């Protein structure tokens, strides 16, 4: 893969909030999960757990997720295994690094999905307690992020981005 190809995918990715009423194949979902599996993690602890949610359970979670306004056929609920994080990486891993690792794994999913013409959207506005209840999560799995997945019905224009000058400082 050339550098330019990856940059193309990065710039192509959008937050999709309007999906077609079409199923996503298990093969595609597994490809996205494989992309997440190859994400880096602090001390290689890999303390994330991903729940693939469809059907009735998805509809129930949606009712308690104000940020989930679309109708995706699939969502990923990305959880931190706080027991493993604490055991192998201590407080820093449990409180900070595992959350970062989850975000990196999520971005791997989003970019892989964009390369397959699939849409995704990060959802931070969801109720953790309700999600834990509906998915019957064990106490050590804490939901941190939801990703929606589906075939885009509408792809929004690129949003305004800050310039590199605003975002970066070069120091020698």
């Amino acid at each position, binding site marked *: 893969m050339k550098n330019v190809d990856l940059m193309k995918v990065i710039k192509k990715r959008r937050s999709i909030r309007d999906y077609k009423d079409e199923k996503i194949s298990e093969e595609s979902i597994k490809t996205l999960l494989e992309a997440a599996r190859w994400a880096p993690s602090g001390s290689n602890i890999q303390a994330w757990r991903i729940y693939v949610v469809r059907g009735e359970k998805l509809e129930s979670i949606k009712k308690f997720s*104000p940020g989930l*306004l679309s109708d995706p056929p699939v969502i990923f609920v990305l959880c931190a295994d706080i027991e493993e994080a604490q055991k192998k990486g201590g407080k820093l891993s449990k409180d900070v690094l595992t959350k970062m690792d989850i975000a990196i794994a999520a971005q791997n999913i989003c970019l892989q999905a964009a390369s397959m013409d699939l849409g995704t959207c990060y959802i931070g506005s969801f*109720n953790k307690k309700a999600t834990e209840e509906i998915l019957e999560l064990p106490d050590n799995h804490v939901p941190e992020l939801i990703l929606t997945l589906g075939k885009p019905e509408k792809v929004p224009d690129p949003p305004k981005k800050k310039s590199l000058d605003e975002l970066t400082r070069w120091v020698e």
Partner: protein
Amino acid sequence: MMSGGNDNKKPIFFDLFCYMSSSARGLVDEPKLYGPLRLLETMERIVDVLEDNDMSNEFYSELKKNIKENKYTVMHDEEKFVESLDEIVKMLAKKEKDFLDD
């Protein structure tokens, strides 16, 4: 016991209560502008309930369309989002005037 109704039958506003309670909890920690967004979304869902129960009309359909078309501007254009809120209030005020005139 308040009523003799079937407790297992989902009341028409149950889903809305789920959404509103989760929104209330979320808004404690979320950006200020998400408050108006959640209220607009609630209006849209109330129109859904009206439609599901054959209680809607052209005015409510137009109101819902207006909300749907503009709510996401909150993500990238605050000025346009506030303008759309003003438009919605204006639309309702006009309707209120119509009620008075009738």
